[in-house]
């Protein structure tokens, strides 16, 4: 059985705001927008504000009606990131595996560390204290045998709570709780379950998984498993970058095919440069096109692995021509590449000119890396007048 921790920074944005300005302590604080302009939603609110019925995602205007005496702040995004990174730095000193689920939530896989750290509850208390002492942020921790149980656990005793669900008791722990406690169950799902007479998690466990499969498909089976204490046991760790993409929104919607082509050429150059810098090749190219009326078309194609601007652009342009069928203005175009593999040198397979081209592309990558992307530009066609006049222009 695994040991998963879920750490949730209590009212994170508000807690950071209170470090930046301690006068906010003990007051109803709302981060998210300016009620004077009536825009935006509550991104976070203090426990004092929650006492007025406020909660995250509530429109700021509604929040203001309920709590006009609250202190409304726009927030300091960069500071939140720094504090979140600082917490992560502390966790990295202890946890063998960390999944950062969001800016203020972390899962730790602590399986097998009991011998090193002793009681998991005691260890959680130590972590909580260290984060409070060193960074000044309150955090709640849930410990369970999978992610769902740990997450529900951390939510049980906020703020500054620690909930340890004894291994094997997950199902018993969940049974009395309302169905919406399960992460992912929103208002619509809650109503749908309630209409079937299902109010508590225990009500789900009394029914068979087939029932939920029939009623809600794969999602229903997942829900049934979670209710029975069988949540996901393994963390998702981001290992590599999965795609590289570039897109641009035109200041004024355009209709000229030539302009689309020029822009796509420029964007392709950018993604190809990033690809070569990583020493990768790509085997899937996709393009995106959005019309004035927001209709969005995407097209993708699998190709022989390549890192060459010319190959990528030719593929992308073929796709774009297929996507661009309407005679209305174009608002946005973009290119993305996925399915990477490391570039493997097998030069003897290439003809002479191909070897030269590979070397040339490598040199281009290095020059741009050193002097900036604009230092060296490929020209696409003889008619490409915009670039032709420049010193750093040369034909592909």
């Amino acid at each position, binding site marked *: 059985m695994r040991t998963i921790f879920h750490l949730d920074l209590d009212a994170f944005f508000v807690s*950071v705001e209170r470090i930046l*300005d301690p006068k906010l302590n003990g007051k109803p604080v709302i981060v998210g927008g300016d009620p004077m302009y009536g825009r935006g939603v509550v991104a976070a609110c203090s426990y004092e504000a929650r006492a007025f019925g406020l909660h995250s995602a509530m429109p700021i205007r509604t929040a203001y009606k309920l709590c006009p005496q609250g202190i409304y702040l726009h927030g*300091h995004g*960069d500071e939140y990131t*720094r*504090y979140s990174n*600082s917490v992560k730095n502390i966790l990295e000193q202890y946890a063998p595996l960390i999944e950062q689920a969001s800016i203020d939530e972390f899962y730790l896989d602590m399986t097998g560390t009991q011998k090193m750290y002793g009681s998991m509850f005691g260890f959680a208390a130590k972590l909580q204290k260290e984060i409070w*002492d060193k960074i000044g942020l309150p955090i709640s921790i849930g410990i369970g045998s999978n992610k769902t149980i740990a997450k529900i656990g951390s939510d049980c005793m906020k703020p500054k709570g620690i909930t340890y669900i004894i291994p094997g008791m997950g199902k018993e722990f969940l049974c009395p709780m309302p169905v919406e406690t399960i992460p992912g169950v929103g208002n619509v799902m809650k109503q749908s379950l309630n209409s079937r007479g299902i109010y508590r998690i225990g009500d789900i466990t009394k029914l068979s998984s087939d029932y939920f499969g029939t009623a809600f498909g794969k999602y229903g089976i997942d829900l049934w498993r979670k209710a029975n204490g069988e949540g996901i046991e393994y963390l998702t760790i981001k290992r590599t970058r999965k795609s590289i993409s570039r897109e641009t929104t035109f200041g004024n919607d355009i209709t000229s095919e030539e302009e689309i082509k020029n822009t796509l050429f420029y964007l392709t150059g950018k993604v190809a440069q990033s690809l070569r810098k990583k020493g990768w090749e790509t085997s899937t190219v996709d393009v995106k096109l959005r019309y004035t009326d927001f209709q969005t078309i995407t097209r993708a194609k699998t190709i022989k692995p390549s890192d060459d601007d010319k190959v990528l652009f030719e593929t992308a342009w073929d796709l774009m021509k297929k996507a661009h069928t309407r005679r209305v203005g174009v608002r946005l175009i973009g290119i993305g590449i996925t399915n990477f593999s490391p570039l493997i040198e097998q030069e003897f397979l290439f003809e002479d000119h191909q070897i030269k081209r590979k070397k040339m592309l490598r040199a281009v990558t290095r020059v741009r890396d050193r002097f900036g992307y604009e230092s060296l530009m490929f020209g696409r066609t003889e008619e490409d007048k915009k670039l032709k006049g420049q010193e750093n222009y040369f034909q592909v």
Partner: protein
Amino acid sequence: MNKPKYNIGTAGWSYKDWAPNFYPKNQSGGFDWLQFYSHYFNCVEVNSTYYSYISPKIVDGWIKKIEDSDDFIFHIKLHKDFTHTRKFDEQNIKAVRYNLELLRKSERLGGLLIQFPYSYSFDGNSLRHIQKLRDIFSDINCFVEVRHSSWNNNRAYEFFKENNLTFCTIDQPKMGQAISFEPIITNDKAYIRFHGRNIEAWKKSLSNFGKPQTYEEQSSRYSYLYTPGELVEIEQKIKSIQQKVKEINVIMNNHPQGDAVANAFELIHLLDEKTKVEMPATIVKAYPRLEEIIVN
């Protein structure tokens, strides 16, 4: 290894715009800035020695002024003839050495800061030149500040280690080929300088390089108050090298209006396990967030 000794201070103390934010607005005839400064900090970096060969009388005066502060030390920035124009003779060496000796005899010398220009990149000539300076100042702690990213390589670090030189860590706006804030340990000391992160002013200053500028224009690129979140990140980075060195010097150079002083107090607090810090009422008035960390 136990916890290292921390020397935390600012780059210089003689700034008119530190009154009234640090130095009091109304100063009596006998009021002395250095004496006041040394009451709160245990080190200072002297930058005037970079611009001119100052008289030993002045150095003597400093030593007398800080008599009451037992462990106060000076870090001296080496004259630009040695680092920027790189044209110097025996006379220049003597002038620098004399002052260093004065400080050393009175146990007030921290070390010699040898700062090279941004353009100074890693190559054989640069290494030979640094080697030459090491030989001239062989008996002094040398903190070498190179700012071009070409120095971020193992051969450079090895050279520093072999010659017992401290590789200065610098924090500055991230742009171009600037070296990034990452402590590199090459001997038993660390020397960390903070130049602020005012990227816009920094760019402007580079474009005005060489043109006549007022004091405000010149110093505006250092105008930057580190945020609490940045300071926590910095604290973690510095603590990550605690076990590797015996001495950590932290110098704040974001001096306009006293930002450097406020941040230096905050770093003293963070690096000393959040103990409350003794500081004058002036600085707390100017930077209210310091109220949380002042000793009662």
